[in-house]
């Protein structure tokens, strides 16, 4: 059973459907005991970092996610959910993240040429970094995935498992031990995205 964490941020319909499509059992929940009894956790999220981090904290789910991850339970953060795994973000102020992965969230605008549009929206290719991650078991270097973001993971080089090129090399996915994060949306990335979710489910 996979727990998709519901903390009042974003639309979880497609994520739940995509897991169903690969035959994975998933429950959308904000209940701490359901999260603790799940085999795996997915932390989704869209919107602003500060609001999302505050909601996770208000519900106490931040501590649940951290303690489950520290016990070794596979955890995947998606989009803003990935960003929340890092230590902090500079999106409208400065906000603390979960700190499960070293690094911080900074505006794409700091590193890309001015003429490029923000957000970075659309299908872009993955370049793998280091040894091929387990979550990429069923996909290939250069496969395209769907991105929608204006901020990116910085100072997290040690954990980067894939980057994408948008006027600069941007963090596309991170991993540290049992904790994984995708800046892109696997649930909106067609077959490639489903294969990433499938690999995560098999960890």
């Amino acid at each position: 059973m996979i727990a998709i964490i519901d903390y009042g941020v974003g639309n979880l319909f497609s994520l739940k459907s995509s897991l169903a499509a690969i035959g994975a059992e998933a429950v959308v929940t904000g209940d701490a005991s359901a999260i603790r009894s799940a085999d795996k956790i997915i932390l989704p999220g869209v919107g602003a970092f500060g609001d999302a981090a505050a909601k996770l904290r208000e519900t106490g789910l931040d501590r649940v996610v951290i303690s489950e991850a520290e016990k070794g339970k596979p955890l995947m953060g998606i989009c803003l959910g990935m960003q929340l795994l890092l230590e902090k973000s500079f999106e409208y102020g400065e906000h603390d993240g979960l700190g499960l992965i070293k690094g911080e969230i900074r505006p794409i605008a700091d590193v890309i040429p001015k003429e490029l549009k923000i957000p970075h929206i659309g299908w872009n290719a993955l370049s793998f970094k280091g040894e091929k991650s387990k979550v990429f078991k069923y996909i290939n270097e250069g496969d395209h995935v769907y991105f929608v973001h204006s901020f990116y993971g910085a100072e997290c080089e040690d954990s980067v498992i894939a980057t994408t090129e948008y006027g600069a090399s941007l963090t596309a996915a991170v991993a540290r031990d049992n904790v994984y994060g995708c800046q892109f949306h696997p649930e909106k990335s067609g077959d490639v995205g489903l294969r990433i979710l499938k690999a995560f489910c098999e960890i």
Partner: protein
Amino acid sequence: MITKRIIPCLDVKNGRVVKGVNFEGLSDVSSPVELARYYSSAGADELVFYDITASAEGRALFTDILREVATQIFIPLTVGGGINTVADFDRVLKCGADKVSVNSGAIRNPELIYEAAKLYGDQCVVISADVKRVDGVFRVFAKGGRENTGMEAIEWIRRCVGNGAGEVVLNSIDTDGVKGGFDLEMLDAVCQVVNVPVIASGGAGCIDHFTTLFKSLPKVDAGLAASIFHFGEVKIEDLKRELHKNNIPVRLS
């Protein structure tokens, strides 16, 4: 490198795709779910569904269908048609839409874009503008292109983006249905004033029109079309291969 998107557009009435679709190998050519699956496997980068139903019953059928599509198709889905309030955004987003496109609703209530963007984020709000030249000036048309609002189009689009629209679909009424190519002049005028993705619509008749579009206007992010895809005049696989051959970045599946 970010790829150029190819987007088929499906008009849905009472839960069925209309405007005649003609495909071999599809058992039910007016089933939105079957068509969505067909286009997704053919390499469509995104799908746009326009609800052209006027009745409440039709609206309910539309959301049922949308939910079914979103349960099976895992590429971005944009929904338009009948979006007049934030509650309409909520209704389609809950059924699996990723983006919501507004047209007449934003003309009637210019606050709609601002309110929706604040609630759901800019990336979720698409301004779809029907534009036609009147005495040499680009004018915004409402009600499916039947009514001249008198508003100057480029300024209108700039204002919508300023209010939080994260993407622009520009439908040129002048080139729509003519199949003589996209309206490059109009698109260029829009690209000059906004820095969000611009989706070209209206006028595609063959593969070359897409090549010309992306070659001559590098700031255009996507090409949208309906009947040429539905009638199989242009196959998305062929189109993307040809764009790739012309060094235009595309996602090949």
